[in-house]
């Protein structure tokens, strides 16, 4: 699972000479050559009533046709089953020519999605490691000139174009992130230095705050984001670990877990007050029932100040520190141990925690659409019950995942994320039981289905009138 640098280093050594040899080539030639690592991925998400087609840019990471997509390229609500018809387009080629691909999964630690191009379509693809820098972990200098690839839309056959800018700032967020003066690459497209060495991947528009002056509304502060081009980018060091972490299941399991809800970073004033010096801490809001953190002896309001003896760096903004700890957890394996240093009533304690396997996620939950009622219900999972502030050791009922507008369920007032606890007066203990009750209700010809529904901690009785 884990990334090992040995895996690609030999290739790298061979390539370095190559990069140097073409260093003097015109940028157009460099771009043309590096396009072999860039693809456009089309896929559809199948919903209950329709399907949406999505386009996203991807980077080839190995010789087996593996392509990585940024985490936001695929909606969090979509389950792997709903992701279909993956097509791979090559920039600038006629869109009638495409390869097909399959969804592999998402890695919890790096958050990349993985797609595999089928063998017949891999011809001409080159892994981005072919263009790696001599020192893959090198961080570009402030002010350094970089260039990247942008891609037009489908109607222009995803024509590639050139973008360039200078490095403005490098930050740990907690991923190593660069910010350029202006758009430097398409989202998900690679960025290179002047020698053509791979430096990073366009991540997102850098949310610049802008004032809009118009005759009607003056000086309204807005955040403008370019959805196609990115000024913020992830450094190459965030891409290479993906190579060793291609998941063998869509959910990226095994997923390590320690079970803390709400980690609040302490601000600089509080850190100083607590005598944390140049380091910082995270306040635990709550421990999830039965979680490894609870078993390890952590208590709500403990302040975590170090992991395996290493104090938390003062990452900026403060909120990044919590993400940093979560990443450190996700880097590990279930069953592994980590030691947290916590401050409790101003006294420091060391608590070893044995990481567990994360409970089933909403994405993994079984679900079923009931056409006549106009509702998709899914299995209640751990996080559903935690979010509803009830005891997660008791996963009763089902969750409304989709409500068809103007359907019987929609008209009755059911909403997405409602927690259905009773169906026709029968308490729902399991998902399977709910399926039986719904199926029975649909088949019975009864004019209505009465559900006891919990929303925002309050229950109410909902009456779903079935069309006769």
């Amino acid at each position, binding site marked *: 699972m884990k990334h090992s640098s040995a895996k690609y280093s030999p290739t790298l050594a061979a390539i370095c000479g190559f990069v140097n040899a073409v260093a003097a080539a015109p940028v157009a030639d460099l771009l043309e050559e590096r396009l072999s690592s860039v693809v456009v991925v089309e896929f559809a998400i199948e919903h209950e009533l329709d399907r949406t087609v999505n386009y996203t840019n991807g980077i080839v990471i190995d010789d087996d046709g593996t392509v990585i997509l940024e985490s936001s390229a695929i909606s969090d609500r979509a389950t792997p089953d709903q992701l279909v018809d993956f097509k791979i387009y090559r920039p600038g080629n006629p869109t009638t020519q495409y390869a097909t691909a399959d969804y592999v999964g998402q890695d919890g630690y790096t958050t990349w999605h993985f797609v595999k191009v089928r063998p017949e379509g891999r011809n001409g693809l080159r892994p981005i490691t072919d263009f790696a820098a001599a020192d893959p972990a090198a961080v570009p200098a402030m002010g350094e000139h970089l260039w990247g690839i942008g891609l037009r839309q489908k109607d222009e056959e995803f024509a590639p174009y050139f973008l360039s800018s200078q490095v403005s700032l490098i930050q740990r967020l907690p991923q190593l992130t660069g910010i350029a003066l202006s758009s430097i690459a398409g989202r998900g497209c690679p960025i290179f230095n002047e020698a053509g060495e791979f430096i990073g991947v366009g991540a997102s528009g850098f949310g610049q705050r802008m004032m809009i002056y118009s005759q009607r509304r003056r000086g309204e502060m807005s955040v403008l984001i370019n959805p196609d081009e990115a000024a913020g980018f992830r450094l190459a060091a965030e891409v290479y670990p993906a190579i060793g972490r291609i998941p063998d299941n869509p959910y990226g399991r095994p997923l390590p877990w320690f079970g803390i809800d709400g980690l609040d970073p302490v601000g600089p004033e*509080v850190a100083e007050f607590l005598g944390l010096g140049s380091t910082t801490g995270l306040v635990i809001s709550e421990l999830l029932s039965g979680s490894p953190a609870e078993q390890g002896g952590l208590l709500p309001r403990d302040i975590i100040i170090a992991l395996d003896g290493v104090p938390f760096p003062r990452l900026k903004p403060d909120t990044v520190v919590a993400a940093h700890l979560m990443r450190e957890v996700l880097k590990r394996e279930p069953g592994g141990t980590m030691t947290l240093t916590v401050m409790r009533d101003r006294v420091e304690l060391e608590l070893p925690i044995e990481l567990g396997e994360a409970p089933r996620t909403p994405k993994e939950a079984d679900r079923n659409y009931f056409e006549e009622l106009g509702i998709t219900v899914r299995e209640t999972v751990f996080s559903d019950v935690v979010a509803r502030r009830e005891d997660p050791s008791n996963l009763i009922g089902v969750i409304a995942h989709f409500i068809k507008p103007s359907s019987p369920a929609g008209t009755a007032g059911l909403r997405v994320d409602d927690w259905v606890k009773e169906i026709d007066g029968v308490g729902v203990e399991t998902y399977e039981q709910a399926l039986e009750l719904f199926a029975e209700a649909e088949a019975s010809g009864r004019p209505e289905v009465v559900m006891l529904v919990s929303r925002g901690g309050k229950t*109410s009785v909902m009456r779903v009138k079935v069309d006769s």
Partner: protein
Amino acid sequence: MTRLVLMLTAGVLLATSSQAETSRGFKKLLDAVVRIDVREFAYEAGSKRFQSGVGSGVIVSHDGLILTNAHVVGLRAVDINVTLANLERVSAELVGWDHWTDLALLRLDQDEIAKKGHKFAVARFGDSDGIAPGETVYAVGTPHGLTRTVTRGIISNPRRFFADSRGVKGYETGQFNTWLQTDAAINPGNSGGPLVTSDGRIVGINSRGYSGADNLGFAIPSSTARRVMAGLAQDGAIQRSYIGIVPGALRDLEDFYDLELNTGMLINSVDPGSPAAEAGIRGGDILLKINGSSVDGRFPEQLPPIKNRIAVSPVGASLTLSIKRGDNSTDFDVATEELVSRVGDESVVEIWGLSIREVSRPFARENQLPDDDGVLVIGVQRGFPAAVAGLSTGDVITKINDTPIASIEDVLAQAEIYEKSPDKVLLEARRKFRVSLYVLKP
């Protein structure tokens, strides 16, 4: 000439449609309606601020009791000035307050009345329970400060139901009474004034109207007002019982629950941690009887009287609720507790620019807090220590300098220590479900 005729015609028409302007009772009533000017303070945005308002009221006893709305005169009133019908001004004090029915009771300063020899009339009550839709009624009051304004309309609906969870200065109202709906114009400032029949008898206390709508006004029925008034005159407040069931109208669910028509009330939900929840009652249960007498809650209008039945039982009393769940009927014994508002006591720590409110049981329940400890932040003043540290409205303070905070007094005690020797203070607060730390600096 033409004009005069027209006016005359109009006068004749009026006289035939109603006799109010000639009735002695109505004239007397006009002499019992007062204008009320109030100055009160609020703990807003981290400081104590004063604000003033104008409303109406009606004198209901010879010793100067005035009935008005709870939202006209509140518990924080500092100056209450009453303008009598003869335009003389007299000060008054608050005798009792009940936001659940939006009623407040004032008393004119008896010494002042005696010294200056002021005269006033006393209004008489009519029968709000017997009033019918279409009956002519008059609203008397001070809309928009226009003293002694009479408007006329009819009873549009004698039993309107609506509850307003923040209706009286943020306090709950309307759960235990229905309202008289009228098309007599009710404007801001009419509040607290009487709604009367043509013989000048009070059938309601005007309370609210739909803003932006035409002539949809609402008054508290006099039957409710009289009952509450008696309690307020005696104790200054009305104590009510609470068990924590939230009713829903049964409407046509009888078939589903296998009930006879016009029996039972649906329990839509049960407040977590409430006496009903502790007793084992759940949402979806059907309430058939309270202490052996049957309940009929088919329609929303029928719910307030049922809630009131529970409310009027003594605090701590045990109620036997007959509940139907599925095919079984079971009796549950529920011990009532005192009904309290979501809005707790309030205060301010001006040195920190921090307005605070006690966390009440209902607030803790509504917000799924583990308990009712802690103190809620209801405002911060810009540039003051609390705001600078990052505290904001909605945070619940749970600890100050390692001292757990359970009540306003705990905060004030810490503020006092700070005031004597200002130094950095570590404060722990909960925002939604997240615990954060803050440092207040002098």
